[in-house]
C-alpha cells in the first residue's frame, strides 16, 4: 500500500533525521537536502489544499490531508463552479 499520507511523510522525515545523526552510509547530506526540498513542496501543496477547503467553506472531515475532497460548494457570485472530472 502506498505511503502517501501526511503522517507517513512525517515519519519518513524523522527517519531521515535519525539516519543523518547516526551517520548512516545510505543517507548523504545531498540526499537529505533533496528530501527536505520535496517535503517542503508537499507541505506547500497541503497548504493550498487547506486554503481551498477554507475558501470553499467545507467543514473539516475526518480524512487526513492528501486525500480527495468532497464535492465543493458553489461559491456565491462565482462565474463557474469547479467541475468534477467525472
Amino acid at each position, binding site marked *: 500500500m502506498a505511503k502517501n499520507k*501526511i503522517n507517513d511523510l512525517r515519519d519518513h522525515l524523522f527517519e531521515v533525521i535519525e539516519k543523518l545523526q547516526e551517520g548512516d552510509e545510505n543517507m548523504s547530506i545531498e540526499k537529505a537536502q533533496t528530501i527536505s526540498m520535496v*517535503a517542503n513542496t508537499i*507541505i506547500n501543496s497541503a497548504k493550498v489544499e*487547506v486554503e481551498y477547503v477554507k475558501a470553499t467553506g467545507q467543514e473539516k472531515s475526518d480524512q487526513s490531508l492528501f486525500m480527495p475532497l468532497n464535492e465543493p460548494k458553489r461559491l456565491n457570485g462565482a462565474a463557474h463552479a469547479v467541475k468534477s472530472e467525472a
Partner: protein
Amino acid sequence: MGKGRMFTEYEKDFISVNYAAMDTVTIASMLRRSVASVHTLAYRLALSKFTVRGRGSNRIVWSGQMLEFLKKNYRLMSNKKLAAALGLKLTVVRMKLYQLGLQRMQLHTWTAEEIKYLKRNYRKMGDVEIADNMQVLFPKEKKWTKQHISKKRGYLGLNRTAGEYAAIRTKNSSPGGSAYTIHRNSSSITMHDSWVAQKLAWRNRQMADHYKKNHPELIELKRAELTLRRTIKTLSNG
C-alpha cells in the same frame, strides 16, 4: 640709525582698513612709503591679510550670524552640510560646535566607582549580567549594554581565562541563569506551535490561527521538515 618718518594717524587708519583687501605694494605707493615699513606697521598693529579665513582654523572670524546659524541648525543638519552652507572646512565647523558645546549626543565617562565594579566582577559575571547590574547600580538614560562593558574591558585589558569563561557559561546555562531562560523562552529553539504556524502562514495571522486550531498534523509535519533542515545545516557546518 636712520631717521624714521613716523606714521600719521591717517596713515595708520588707512592701513588698518585696507591692509587685508589691498596689495601691500599699492598701499606703499599710495602713502609713499616702503613696502617693508607698511609690513612692519601692519605687524605692530596685529593686522593680517587673512582676516576671514586664516592659515589656521583659529584665524576664522565667526560673525554673530554664523554662530546663530550653527545654533539653529546643528541638530537638523550634518556637520558636512553645515560646513558647506557656511563655506568652511568640516574640521572648522566640528571644532566650533565642540567649543560651543553643541553636541548631538552626550558621551558617558566612566567613573572610578564604575571601573571598580567592573574590575571586581568581570571574572565571575558575563558582560550582559554586568550591564544589567550596572543599570541598577549606576542608572544611565542611554542604558548599559554588553557592548559598553566589553569595550571597556578591552581598553583596560581585563581579559578572562578559558576557565573563567566556562564557569560563567555553566552558571548562565543552569536554571535561573540568563542563557537558560532565553533558551527556554526562545520560540525558534523550542519550535512552539504558534511559531511553526507563523512559518507556515507567512505574515498571515488569520491563516496561522487556522492552522494551529484545525491542522495540528500539518504543524507537526512542518516541524519535522524544519528539524530536518536544521540537522542538515548543523552537519554541513561541521
